[in-house]
């Protein structure tokens, strides 16, 4: 059983406070959805978790299976079992996906020879054209192709916890379904017989949730989780929009270090 524990995480970008105390635990097999308006800090959370340069952690802690993630380099976090499917995958000219995954395998003493066939299998599962596997990373790929590429890489790397930052954007209905099925399978069976995948899915649409069936939905605004609960929260959100939460926050803030209203079957009281 793996566990990503984020406690009271605070971070700044360009000297601006963006994350204002995020507390969240994701365990193997769980699917958590983080929903929040544009600019609320969702991608910042995912970037901070992965150690992107330019994001400064000013407080709190993040551990994966008890190990301090924040002290690690980005690649070490990945090797420790964290994966980030980026909202905007970067184009890297001259390097193929295969090269990157082969190096990642080599760095963890896995047989790099396994990469090509695994990639081919995973690409087939979600309808990603195999010709892209040899082409430069993300170069000239459409938005949807990039997201499928992120999914293939995740499946080949086989992480313990995956952060999916707006994985749904750019995917058409069929592709979203295929990608969701793949992720769901990983949450129930793990990658190639390994531990079940824990998922932190960031989105601002319901579309992904309908496919992914999250166990917990977190409403995220202004750098904080305002409320956590079951899928019914997403339904409420659908009806009222974020206005309800954001207003609520404006009324109750500035004093309280807004502790999330927890209705989370997976939350252990000890953490709170």
């Amino acid at each position, binding site marked *: 059983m793996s566990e990503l524990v984020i406690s009271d995480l605070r971070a700044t970008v360009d000297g601006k406070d963006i994350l204002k105390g995020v507390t969240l635990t994701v365990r193997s097999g769980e699917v958590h959805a983080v929903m929040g308006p544009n600019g609320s800090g969702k991608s910042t959370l995912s970037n901070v978790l*992965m150690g*992107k*340069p*330019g994001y400064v952690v000013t407080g709190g802690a993040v551990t994966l299976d008890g190990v301090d993630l924040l002290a690690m*380099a*980005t*690649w070490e*976090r*990945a*090797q420790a079992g964290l*994966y*980030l499917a*980026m909202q905007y*995958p*970067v*184009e*890297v*000219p*001259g*390097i193929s996906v295969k*090269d*990157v*995954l082969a*190096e*990642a395998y080599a*760095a*963890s003493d896995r047989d790099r020879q396994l990469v090509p066939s695994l990639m081919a299998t995973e690409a087939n599962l979600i309808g990603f054209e195999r010709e892209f596997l040899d082409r*430069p*990373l993300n170069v000239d790929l459409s938005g949807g192709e990039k997201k499928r590429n992120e999914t293939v*890489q995740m499946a080949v*790397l086989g992480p313990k916890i995956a952060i999916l930052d707006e994985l749904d954007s750019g995917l058409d209905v069929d592709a979203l379904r295929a990608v969701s099925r793949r992720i769901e399978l990983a949450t129930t069976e793990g990658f190639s017989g390994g531990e079940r995948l824990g998922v932190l899915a960031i989105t601002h649409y319901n579309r992904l949730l309908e496919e992914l069936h999250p166990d917990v939905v977190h409403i995220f605004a202004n750098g904080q989780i305002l409320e956590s609960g079951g899928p019914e929260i997403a339904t409420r959100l659908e009806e009222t929009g974020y206005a309800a939460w954001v207003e609520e926050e404006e009324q109750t803030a500035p004093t309280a270090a807004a502790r999330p209203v927890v209705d989370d079957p997976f939350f252990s009281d000890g953490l709170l």
Partner: protein
Amino acid sequence: MSTDLSTDSFSSAVADSLDGPAWLRERRHAAAEDAAQMAFPSTDSEEWRYSRIGDLDLEQFEMIPAPDADAAHTTSEIPLAVTEFIQELGQLGGSVLVYNGRIVSTQLSDELLQQGVVFGAVPEDATPKGAAEVLGAVMHEAPDLFGAYNDAFGADPVVLDVPRNLVIDLPLAVVFYVDVADSITFPRLSVRGGENSQFSFIEASLSADVPAVVAPVTEVVVGNAARVSHSALQDVGPQVWQVGTFLAEVGQDATLDAALAAIGGSYARLRMDCRLVGRGASGNLSSAYFGDDHQMLDLRTFQEHQAADTTSKLLFKGAVADNSHSVYTGLIRIKPDARGSNAYQTNRNLKLSDTAWAESVPNLEIENNDVHCSHASTVGPVDEEQRFYVESRGVPSLVAERLIVAGFFDEVLDHFAVPALASVARDRVNKILDSHVGALLTSDSALLADASNESA
């Protein structure tokens, strides 16, 4: 720096002492006299700005005497480095090896010989339409003293003359190699592609790890409607100074593709002039250059559009590591008759260390406004977003950097007409990258060890 250039070492008497056919000897003599009138380059002039030319004392280098006639070169004498290099190139239509300034081996398939290809030393009895015309066909006038010296003191110029309409499938290769310490040599390669011909040639400049100066001149005439590809590798030893010139003239509807991988040398300079002289001519220039240690790579390009509807595309990509420097200056010159021309120039530089330095100076000189020109130039470290992306997949930082740099060069290496040469260049780039990754890994673990000592 001595400016007295009429010294004994570079006098017309020295030029006269070189052997060869009478016409060549006369040519050398005249060039030596011209050279005596020319000044040693100075960084005061724009074309030599940023260069290290002021540090070069030619008096410390000597020309290599002709080998003993009795002990004529045999193939067994050819250094292993050269034989191995040739093997890496795969199947060739012909090859010429120039060792310490002298041609030691010439090979040309019987078929090409019968088809009228001239490849190797200049012939004794040069006919007016023959090789004598190819030598100097583009460099009528040396752009600098080193070019003039090449005319005056080049012991064994190599000529490649391809008849009109001939299409050659296999590449032809010329390899220059030097292993005499404190020597100065003047490699010369003069190429003419006859009208509507098509071929590809390789030029490699290599050396042992000795202090030496090489001052090569390569000139290429691309006849009307001809398609000529040049793939060059400069990988001389780390103590070698190279001051080179490449000149091309491209005729009507003809295309020249020239690709250069510049890796070696202490100071290695190449000036490239691509003159589009016939209507509809195209010139594509590409280069991958990679400096490390205290090296300086110095590249000057001139895309000169003389005729209408001509196109030039230039893509130069460089990386500088350690304390190395690179200079790229590029001029797009549109002459008054060059209406309807397109000129593109892109120079990108990766700075791989804080102490490395890359200069990039694009320039335009436009005398006809009915043209399209664009230039782009960048100098910067490895892109942080790219690095983060690759590392986020679990690739260690230094391996990620190595992948990104290799990928950066890939675009240019794809422009090499001879894939074998591209892969040789790729191997050499990777070798430098590996040595840096290795060095950085050790220094990193040393740092970690230091840190743990402190905390202990």
